[in-house]
Every structure is written in structure tokens, then in C-alpha cells.
């Protein structure tokens, strides 16, 4: 499994990637949508985990761009919103992308990653 983590909280995304690596998951990380598009252009990923709210390209817009450019790539959103209803209010009705609310439980994240990849 090769994944790309995208979040503007560098400390968060770098440490999460390190913990996933310890569990045998090949995880790269970047802190902007622009860097994510560049990274995905040079390396194939099975899954991208995206922060919803980021400066520049938002996670929602990034998911649409990456889905267009890399058909087959799967996505999970991470959100710092206070509740699931807050998150859903920001999602277009035609998009069905799974999500987790921060802070995340790493085992729950891995379970969700596996489920997303096999869906």
C-alpha cells in the first residue's frame, strides 16, 4: 500500500507518516495541495489522505483534481471540523468520500484505509 498524506500541519502529517511507516505502510507526506499534485505526478499512489481545509487548494478541490488526473486513486478526508454534520455541509452531494475527524486513532485509520482500497 502506497499512500500520500496531505495536511498543512507539518508536525501532524510528518509524525503520522512516520507511525504508518513503522506499520509497514509506504507513506509520503506534503503540506500543500500544489505539492500533492506534483508528488502524485511523479509517483503512483493507491490512496491519498487529505485535510479538508488548507491554504491554497482546499482538500475538497484537491480530491477532484487528483481524481481526474489519477483515475483509480482512492481518497479519505481528515477534518478538524467539530462534528460530522459540519463536515458534510462542506461536501458536494455527488461526492462519496470517507472521512475521519482529528485527532485520529491510527488503527481506525488503517482499517478505513484497507476498507477504502477494497471498496
Amino acid at each position, binding site marked *: 500500500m502506497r499512500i500520500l498524506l496531505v495536511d498543512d500541519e507539518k508536525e501532524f502529517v510528518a*509524525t503520522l507518516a512516520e507511525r504508518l511507516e*513503522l506499520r509497514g505502510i509506504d507513506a509520503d507526506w506534503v503540506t500543500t495541495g500544489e505539492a500533492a499534485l506534483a508528488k502524485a505526478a511523479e509517483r503512483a499512489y493507491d490512496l491519498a489522505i487529505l485535510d479538508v481545509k488548507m*491554504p*491554497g487548494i482546499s482538500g475538497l478541490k484537491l480530491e477532484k483534481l487528483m481524481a481526474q488526473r489519477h483515475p483509480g486513486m482512492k481518497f479519505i478526508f481528515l477534518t*478538524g*471540523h467539530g462534528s460530522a454534520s459540519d463536515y458534510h455541509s462542506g461536501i458536494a452531494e455527488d461526492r462519496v468520500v470517507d472521512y475521519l*475527524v*482529528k*485527532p485520529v486513532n*491510527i488503527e481506525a485509520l488503517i482499517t478505513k484505509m484497507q476498507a477504502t482500497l477494497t471498496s
Partner: protein
Amino acid sequence: MTVPAEIVGAEGLKFFGRISASISHEIRNALAVINEHAGLLEDMTLMAEKGMPLDAARLKRTAGAVLKQVQRVDGIVKTMNRFAHSVDEPLKRVDLAETLELVVRLFGRFAAVRQVTLAPESPLASVSVATRPFQLQNLIGLCLDHAMQSAGAGGTVKLSIAPLPDGGAEIRFGGLGVSALPETPLAGETFQALLGATRTEVAICAETGELGLRLPPKIACDAGGETGA
């Protein structure tokens, strides 16, 4: 027809909710970082139990990162606390520099998402006026929204305070593109109602687009009937 007091009250609730949501988002982000570092410490402990040597330097860095996030949350909570207490007294003498710095801190996340830098002059002129603290913060917030939109991604909004001869002061928002007042949200009834509640006047420089809020040295108690928040 909606009266100004109702508009000010409704806008005040909206402003309070927006700031509260932003702060909870910021706290969640800090908790997420702490969560990952705590998880990493647990991972290292589990590996040590299996015979892998503990990396002391890595442990020290991780502990330091947790402490940094705790300080971050402490700062966020202090800011939230100051903001929450701004509704304690409807009319109060406030230091404009402190008020402006508080609103800038509250808008830090909004500015980051818009990729705009908020740059208060250092040091800001210290002028105190008797005003409605919460409505003034709300008014400054609306102006910051306008200023950030005008400045655009990559732009800088320069903030300063200029004392006025009558003992009042002008809060200035610079670095904006030229935009006439009637074409902006600042011409709306909400903005006008907040101007009325704080007895503030707007000045826009036609050449630079710089926006100014002119506050009187004090507002009379009889203005009390106009606010609902």
C-alpha cells in the same frame, strides 16, 4: 423592517459562532499533533519492549514537540478567554492596540487559509476610547474580511492606529486594492448597523483604497438602546 439592534444582535451571534468554530478547529489541530507524538512515544516504547534500543534524541524531540503544542493551545485558550469576556460590559474603555491585536489573533486561521498576511504596525499606537468592545471587534472583523478579500492570496494587509485631534482614533487597513465602498459588503445594513452602534465613521482613500474606521473618544450611554448583543 429589521431594526439596527436586531441586526447588531444577529451579527454578533454569527461573529461569536464563527470565532468559536475557528478556535475549536485550531484546538483540534493541536490535539491531533499531540495525539500523533504521544502515539509515536507509545510505538517507541513497544519497540523497546521487543529489544530495539530507545533513541534518546528522538524521545527528547518528541517531548519537546508535545510541549510546544501545549503552549500553542494555552495561547489559543487565553485568546478565546479574552474574546469571551469582551461581552461582559457592553460599554467600556478599551485600548485600541490591544483590541486590534486580539482580533488579528482571532483571524489568524482565516488569514492563513486565504494566504494573506496580517501585518499590524509595530508598535501600534496606544489610544483608549470608551466604546462597545464586542461590536468594535465585530466591526474590525468585517473590515478584515473585506481587506483580506481585497488584498488577495499572497497579499499583505497593513494595520495601524492613528490618534485623532478630538481624542478618538482611526484604525487603518492598508495594502488593499482600490475598491469603492458601495460595491463592497461594507455598504450593507449589517456594517452600517455596527457603525451606528459604535458611533464609528468610515473613511476610504480614493487613491490607495486604504480603509479607515474613525472612532470617537467615547460614545454616550444613550446609545445603549441600539445594541442587542
